[in-house]
């Protein structure tokens, strides 16, 4: 038996999602940390319980039942630390995405500079910007007060003034916020997060600090050319926690169990993506996508530096109406491989928003939900492109940069009936470029690991090494366009025993190179007709080491950007063919 290199620490992670609350248990097995089991129950943050505790206890009950280990004592409290009889846990971490997005008024001096930074900060958590205020909006102070009072924000984020920069203009904006806060009934006074000119903190404190809801963070725009929202993100997470504590019952108990190891799920998700980016190819980023009932989250990290963007009301459950409203119906139905009347699709989406927990029973229903997922991903990716660093390798500004790997989470992906369906949703929705590995967070564990990574990084490392993310396959996605059927790629694959396979791939197809899961092969990829496979320039060939996933190695030769036929019959025929290729 190997000697343990770790302290034996049992850890329980609780994730309170919009639909489900999950409990995930980690412990040491044979000297290494392992994910043992999970339990889930409907989230009880809302009616009729208005107390997350019920859902948390039910999820923990499931864990206890699955593993035959007591976690809750006779007094109803979590057994902590763990006992000699193996009951209890030593650490609890919690993440949360449940609840309506926090209503935010974003304030900055210039629309494209500090206001844009304030909006980006707001987008790192579950929030919805309900109004914006900036110097150029031409409103009088009284109009700004009226706007704030009308918006009923729960949080006002103020950015503005580079360090040693503008002060009077910032204080003018602060005046409106101060007066609006004064006029708002005490129970509805918003939090204010000031992340502007650091020289103004004292004056801001004297203007807004009286009600105890003012928080300070380092300037998110210390100079015109530098944006640094990470420190303010931590303060925002704390505000998120405080707001949820006021809104939802049971939070006090959860916070006491977790010792304040409580962060928004999206923050935890970004953290694990950042963590992964330090372990993979430093020339490429790591991309994480989490598509949920209410929100879609896009997290990306480049050599340890992360970005995250949360899209409220863009999902496949409660957020399905948002997905519909932000698109034309035809942008959803274009992903269907069969003819389904528009009214049936639209009615289904409205019914899904009413019953977000419901499960598609027929193939037609599943096709609509997967089409929704594709469209939600498309919208989220398109709106994230400008937030990625400009100096990273990407084939074109309107395409996804080169990532290695891409990790996808969310039940619509992880619980898809086949791996092929999961991969095709991701290929259509994300449209990755070049050569990348696509993995699925099959146990929906990524956010928990992100939360864990701060208190026990070794646990996160060791659990990731146990293939907790299921490799769907290495994907080769050449960038370019050609006529359907034109050869665009020649691939020579050499396996470990030296056997060679050569394949010429035609434009408009998806092909699979059969490689066993985990098997390593050498690929020589030669793009034809000036297609770009991410080797530095269009038309350039290259050799890479690749690993087979559950679907082997997948060549997505449909071109980038993916253009779907305008002719419905032809489009549906092709989609069906792509589905069959990944069956």
């Amino acid at each position, binding site marked *: 038996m190997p000697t343990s290199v770790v302290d034996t620490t049992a850890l329980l992670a609780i994730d309170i999602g919009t639909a489900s609350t999950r409990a995930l248990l980690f412990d040491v097995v044979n000297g290494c940390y392992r994910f043992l089991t999970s339990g889930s*129950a*409907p989230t*009880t*943050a*809302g*009616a*009729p*319980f208005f107390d997350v505790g*019920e*859902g948390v206890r*039910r999820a923990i009950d499931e864990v206890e039942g699955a593993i035959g280990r007591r976690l809750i004592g006779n007094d109803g409290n979590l057994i902590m630390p763990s006992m000699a009889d193996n009951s209890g846990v030593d650490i609890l971490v919690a993440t949360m995405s449940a*609840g*309506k997005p926090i209503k935010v008024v974003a304030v900055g001096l210039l629309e494209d500079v500090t206001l844009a930074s304030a909006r980006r900060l707001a987008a790192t958590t579950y929030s919805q910007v309900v109004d914006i205020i900036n110097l150029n909006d031409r409103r*009088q*102070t*009284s109009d700004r*007060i*009226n706007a704030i*009072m*009308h918006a009923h924000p729960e949080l006002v984020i103020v950015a503005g003034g580079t360090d040693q920069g503008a002060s009077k203009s910032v204080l003018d904006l602060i005046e409106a916020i101060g*007066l609006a806060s*004064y*006029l708002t*009934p005490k*129970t*509805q006074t918003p939090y204010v997060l000031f992340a502007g000119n650091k020289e103004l903190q004292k004056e801001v404190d004297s203007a807004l600090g009286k009600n105890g809801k003012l928080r300070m963070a380092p300037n998110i725009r210390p100079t015109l050319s530098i944006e640094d929202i990470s420190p303010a993100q931590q303060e925002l997470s704390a505000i998120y926690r405080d707001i949820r504590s006021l809104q939802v019952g049971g939070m006090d108990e959860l916070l006491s169990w977790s010792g304040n190891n409580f962060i928004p799920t999206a923050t935890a998700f970004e953290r694990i993506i950042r963590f992964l980016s330090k372990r993979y190819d430093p020339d490429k980023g790591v991309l994480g996508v989490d598509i949920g009932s209410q929100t879609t989250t896009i997290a990306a990290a480049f050599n340890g530096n992360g970005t995250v963007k949360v899209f409220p009301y863009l999902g496949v459950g*409660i957020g399905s109406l948002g997905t519909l409203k932000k698109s034309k119906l035809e942008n959803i139905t274009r992903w269907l491989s069969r003819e389904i009347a528009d*009214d*049936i699709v*639209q*009615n*289904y*989406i*409205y*019914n899904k928003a*009413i*019953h*977000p*927990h*419901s*499960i*598609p*029973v*027929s*193939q037609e*229903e*599943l096709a609509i939900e997967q089409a929704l997922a594709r469209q939600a991903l498309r919208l989220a990716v398109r709106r994230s492109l400008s937030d990625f660093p400009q100096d990273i390798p990407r084939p074109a500004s309107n395409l996804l940069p080169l990532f290695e790997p891409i990790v996808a989470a969310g039940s619509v992906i992880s*619980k898809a*009936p*086949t791996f092929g*369906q999961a991969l095709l949703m991701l290929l259509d929705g994300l449209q990755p470029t070049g050569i990348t590995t696509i993995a699925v967070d099959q146990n929906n564990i990524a956010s928990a690991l992100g939360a864990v990574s701060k208190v026990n990084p070794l646990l996160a490392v060791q659990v990731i090494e146990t293939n907790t993310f299921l490799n769907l396959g290495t994907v080769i996605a050449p960038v370019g366009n050609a006529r359907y059927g034109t050869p665009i790629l020649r691939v020579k694959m050499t396996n470990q025993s030296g056997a060679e396979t050569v394949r010429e791939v035609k434009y408009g197809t998806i092909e699979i190179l059969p490689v066993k899961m985990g098997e390593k092969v050498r690929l020589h990829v030669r793009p034809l007709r000036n297609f770009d496979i991410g080797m530095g320039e269009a038309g350039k060939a290259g050799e890479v080491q690749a690993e087979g996933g559950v679907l082997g190695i997948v060549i997505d030769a449909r071109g980038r950007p993916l253009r779907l036929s305008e002719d419905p019959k032809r489009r549906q025929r092709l989609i069906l063919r792509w589905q069959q290729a990944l069956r």
Partner: protein
Amino acid sequence: MLAPVKIITPLTYIQRERLLPIPGRVLARQGQEVTPADVVAECNSSPKYTILDIAEGLGVPANRADKLLQCKAGDAITKGDVIAGPVGLFQRVVRASHAGLVKIVGDGKVLIENKVSLFELKAGLDGTVAKIIPERGVVIETRGALLQGVWGNGQAGYGLIQLLLDGPADVLTADKLDVSVRGMIILGGYCQSPEVLKTAGEIPVKGLILGSMSSALIPLAKKVKYPVLIVDGFGQIPLNAAAYKLLTTINKKRDVTIHAQTYQTFTGERPEVIVSLPAPEHIEAHLRADDFAVGQKVYLINKSYTAQTGIIERILEKPIRFPSGIQSPAAEIRFSNNERVKVPLANLETFGEKNEQMTY
């Protein structure tokens, strides 16, 4: 597993909060009997604010302007009242541009809350005020029939009910609406025509309860000036048997209240139809959350099934795979015709009835 609840019952104990959007004044007293039209609380509807720059108006420095003020915080003012001054050779003054209330004075400025209209909160149902929530509203209790739906256009109303359907799958057409239903709440089956909503508004009716509606009509339904409540969902779905039975047996001489509010999964607010009835004191409330159990009457939320209500015959031990390919924990449901079907637990709602062991 925790089951969501949709209540459709001829008799239950009902408690509903009626709250102002912002703090205001509660007018009702605890124990007071109320009717739907009674105003139970009021507040100023979203006040607007104006800042008067007195210093600039009088042409003096801010600290001097403060000394020339003719009002203080808390003063009620009317339009044209002198706020500050007179000063100078021409006896300059600053007058109020709006009627309102002075909220803050200082630094040469006056902030005025403009006078606004009152927002009146109505009881919305027949009942008794069970509790006062200071500055916010009341809790009203009643006993009677309760039907919860899935969608509402945000409006409320009450009146006598008129049935315009021959069966649960009936389609409501505009030609069924005429002056004989003026001022009434209409119960219809499926609605797919905008003409129905337009004609109902022209008559006008006091409300429309529909089994189902085409989602294409939602924009129009949000515009009409009477409440529209959908019981089962969007698309052509027959009115569920429990709702059909309840609504077709309501005493036609009793007022029916519709709260066609938006379904909020987080707050639990659902569009509802309430009919207050004389009933014994001991009637208990239905459960608002429940665990699935054999013998329970359930509502099927997926329109793939021929009937929408049934009884849990057994809860399957292991998840099963459905035609979509998705695996899910499931239950076997028996319909009234003894047909049996396996349904994901996630696609079921219970009726929140206590200790129920239902038989047909």
